[in-house]
């Protein structure tokens, strides 16, 4: 889950990390909450907001109102602006970049810093990679003082104590929150100490069971501000936590594995047709998940034929067949369904499907070809 800036900053403040004073504005009526001069920052889950015109400085209320009106009606990189964070401008002496994240290649937490603060880090990595410093933090050893001295020296930071304290806090916060990324960019050096001017936090959804209250509060809050237009299928998929991606064609697709799901899509394209979606249930699917997933994919009315691509290892084909049968009992079949089924317990599952008069094959290419032909003959 990617947090919005105001959510990330609220969490940082709770961990005693300094952030600018500010107020969240969700309508022009909140104008009196703003202390001038102020920075107005559109709350959208994307980077590069400065360049996209999503951050503006205003000196007084009269000037603020039209800016606020426009910002709240705008869309930044496909995201309708949900709310605006109004912050006190901070007197900045220097800006640096710091982040704590998981290095997936080394399987280690990584502390990353750069003297090029306030710039998109991808851009720094591309143009001046020598300005990025990376130090792995062994989870069994933790951050050592010499690492912090090393970083402070590289970033030319004078107040070592304050910097060390700040870095230790973001490392600890990241671990406590199960963040996969905690990025402060820029971290401002100011006369009154170090202040996180912007913050990006990615939380590990797989760890939500450890933070149930916090994660659901953050999610509810995002929902409240989210005005992105969503199709019924996407909405249903989010609600049911089903992995669903909408595409542009007319052939619906459900798979029980990501790899075969992508392979099935490739085959649909290779046979000259277009998939309506990608949808994968994961290895632990049961009859209930199968049934609910068909409901999601068929909520998209562009779907004219549905391909279900199943190759059972951990997934049991008797349960998958049960899920499909249950769907057909509860619903009128609106489109042809073509099923590929083989693997664990397919000897039970296949006869169940064929008994219902469904097209079911053991071979994937035959399945996709049949579906593509049916779509053509509609």
């Amino acid at each position, binding site marked *: 889950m990617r947090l919005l800036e105001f959510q990330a900053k609220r969490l940082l403040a709770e961990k005693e990390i300094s952030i600018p004073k500010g107020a969240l504005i969700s309508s022009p009526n909140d104008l009196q909450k703003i202390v001038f001069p102020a920075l107005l920052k559109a709350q959208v889950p994307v980077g590069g907001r400065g360049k996209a015109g999503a951050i503006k400085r205003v000196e007084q209320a009269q000037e603020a109102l039209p800016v606020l009106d426009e910002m709240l009606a705008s869309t930044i990189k496909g995201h309708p602006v949900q709310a605006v964070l109004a912050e006190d401008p901070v007197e900045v002496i220097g800006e640096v970049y710091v982040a704590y994240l*998981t290095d*997936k*290649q080394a*399987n*280690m*937490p990584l502390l990353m810093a750069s003297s090029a603060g306030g710039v998109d880090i991808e851009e720094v990595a591309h143009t001046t990679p020598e300005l990025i410093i990376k130090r792995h933090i*062994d*989870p*069994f050893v933790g951050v050592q003082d010499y690492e912090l001295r090393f970083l402070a020296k590289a970033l030319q930071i004078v107040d070592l104590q304050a910097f060390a304290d700040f870095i230790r806090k973001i490392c600890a916060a990241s*671990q406590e929150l*199960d963040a*996969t990324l905690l990025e402060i960019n820029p971290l401002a050096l100011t006369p009154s100490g170090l202040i996180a001017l912007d913050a990006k936090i990615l939380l*590990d959804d*797989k*760890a939500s*069971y*450890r933070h149930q209250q916090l994660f659901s509060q953050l999610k509810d809050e995002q929902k409240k501000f989210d005005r992105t237009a969503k199709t019924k299928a996407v909405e249903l998929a989010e609600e049911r936590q089903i*992995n669903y*991606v909408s*595409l542009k064609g007319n052939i619906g697709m459900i*798979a*029980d*594995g*990501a*790899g*075969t*799901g*992508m*392979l099935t*899509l*490739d*085959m649909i*394209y*290779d046979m000259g047709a277009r998939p309506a979606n*990608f949808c*994968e249930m*994961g*290895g*632990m699917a049961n009859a209930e998940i199968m049934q609910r997933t068909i409901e999601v994919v068929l909520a998209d009315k562009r779907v004219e034929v549905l391909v279900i691509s199943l*190759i*059972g*290892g*951990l997934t*049991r084909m008797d349960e998958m067949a049960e899920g499909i049968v249950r769907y057909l009992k509860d619903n009128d079949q609106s489109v042809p369904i073509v099923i590929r089924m*083989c*693997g*664990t317990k*397919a000897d039970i599952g296949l006869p169940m499907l064929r008994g219902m008069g469904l097209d079911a094959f053991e071979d*994937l*290419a035959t399945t996709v070809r049949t579906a593509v032909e049916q779509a053509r003959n509609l």
Partner: protein
Amino acid sequence: MAILIDENTRVLVQGITGNVGSFQTGIMQDYGTNTVAGVTPGKGGTEIFGIPVYDLVEEAVRERHVDAAISFVPARFAKDAAMEVIGSSIPLLVLTTDGMPDQDVLTILRYAALKGTTVLGPDTPGLISPGKCKLGVHPHTMFMKGPVGIVSKSGSLSYEVGRLLTESGIGQSTVVGIGGGPIWGLSQESVLRMFEEDPETEAIVLLGEVGGRLEHDAAYFISLYMKKPVIALIVGRMAPEGVQMGHAGAIIEGEEGTAASKIKALKKAGAIIASSSLNIPELIKKVEV
């Protein structure tokens, strides 16, 4: 032996009395896997399929001698279970568990590196050495003994390709799924190296997908180290940019993650590119194994 396991491998199953654990243990048992012990805390002293169940891994190791462990423990308890296996110095752990927090996986992998345990996964179907040993959840009728090694990010894709090869009369030495999660233990390169050194493997099929730079690293390794033919398939060719295709890593962010750039790198490294899963058997026949 093929790689990592063979008919003599003595296996311990964690979570052996659970729904998934017991179901899969039964299938492994029928296949001929030498399962010598099971562990479920609180169920010590019982038996399942004639296999003794212990409360603690340490007890099982002391009484039964164990070469490899496979875990069917749910995500919430999987870290503790994995640490127990590593703490007991079992050389190989197959972690089938899906959905473990990244931080838990990092801790497990760090401890495993310190103690010398090889961790396959998490979120892996495990591995199968057809005719010898199945340490995983593969639908085994899709595989047969032979000279082709398969290494795959995706479990389901390795079943699919195994099945196509078997139908064409081409057997496999070992089929390894490295795991679908964002972080995993045993690397693609390590598996490639094992296949290169394994006398029973004559050709390798590498199955990859869009997103990340895994196959770029593999390509570099192939160019440096591999003498045996490598046939590669990358799925998700038409995936749009910026959306996650199932696996946590299967998201195209920048040129490097596209199928086209991966295929180019693998081709340059000397790998043979399969344009579809359906071409793989014929490409294997061409390299004359």
